[in-house]
């Protein structure tokens, strides 16, 4: 009984200590430091990335004799022994998995 009474008293005192803190300009000061709108910058960034990607595709197509290198690469791959294809595919899968796992880890760490 005494134990409970003491705990109630302690909790009440602790809550008293947590009295409301007046804003006193805190929010206004903080809002001056909040970055400006990001939506235009985001759309601009997307447009720039898309434009550069399309330009790179056009340059690659023209510089590679109409994409002939792709046909050559496919022919080379088709002529390779099956076990080499398996090793190459496994290596690519490992690289992609490690990259994705690293990105996921970094994102989770940033959120915490």
């Amino acid at each position: 009984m005494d134990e409970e009474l003491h705990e109630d008293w302690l909790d009440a005192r602790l809550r008293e200590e947590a009295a409301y803190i007046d804003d006193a300009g805190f929010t206004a000061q903080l809002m001056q430091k909040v970055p400006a709108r990001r939506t235009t910058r985001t759309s601009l960034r997307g447009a720039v990335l898309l434009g550069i990607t399309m330009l790179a595709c056009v340059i690659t197509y023209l510089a590679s004799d109409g994409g002939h290198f792709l046909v050559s690469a496919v022919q080379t791959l088709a002529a390779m022994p099956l076990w080499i294809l398996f090793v190459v595919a496994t290596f690519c899968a490992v690289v992609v998995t490690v990259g994705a796992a690293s990105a996921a880890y970094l994102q989770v760490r940033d959120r915490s």
Partner: protein
Amino acid sequence: MPLTDADLVARVLVHDDHHAFAELVRNHQSAIRGLLRQLTRNDLALADDLAQETFLRAYRHLSSFRGEAKFSTWLYRIAYNCFREDARKRKELVGIDETMLEAQEDPQVTDPALKHDLMHALSLLPLHERSAILLCCQNGLSHDEAARVLDIPLGTVKTNVLRGREKLKKTLAAWGPA
């Protein structure tokens, strides 16, 4: 009808509405600044700097708030992380002894005249017990929510609250109910 935290968060995310974010800050500034004041042992300037960093970080990472926990719990977690990072940095800069952060002086050997001061009694608790007491007993978080904020197991939170309570009761015994 006042907007809920979820409504305000949605407005910030969809329209980058600064007024909505300011409303969120106004709603939670007292609790966050209060917690940081206690964690920094009433260093008001440092607590407000950390509170600003907390809200700025919340703004930058608002898209990662998925609404699984209460918005206030999410903010407490950011505030606690800010405090820990700052404590670590300051330790590197001025060589603060780790014991100052984790295991403070023994309450039994302090000036008896200060025992009546609950703030002082709180400041004597080790950081892990002080944090648990502040979140659960002062700010009304459940043990589960405090475990999320502090990123420690639920059982450890319960133990820390229990031990912290015992120490506070001992320190403040003379001022307790008759």
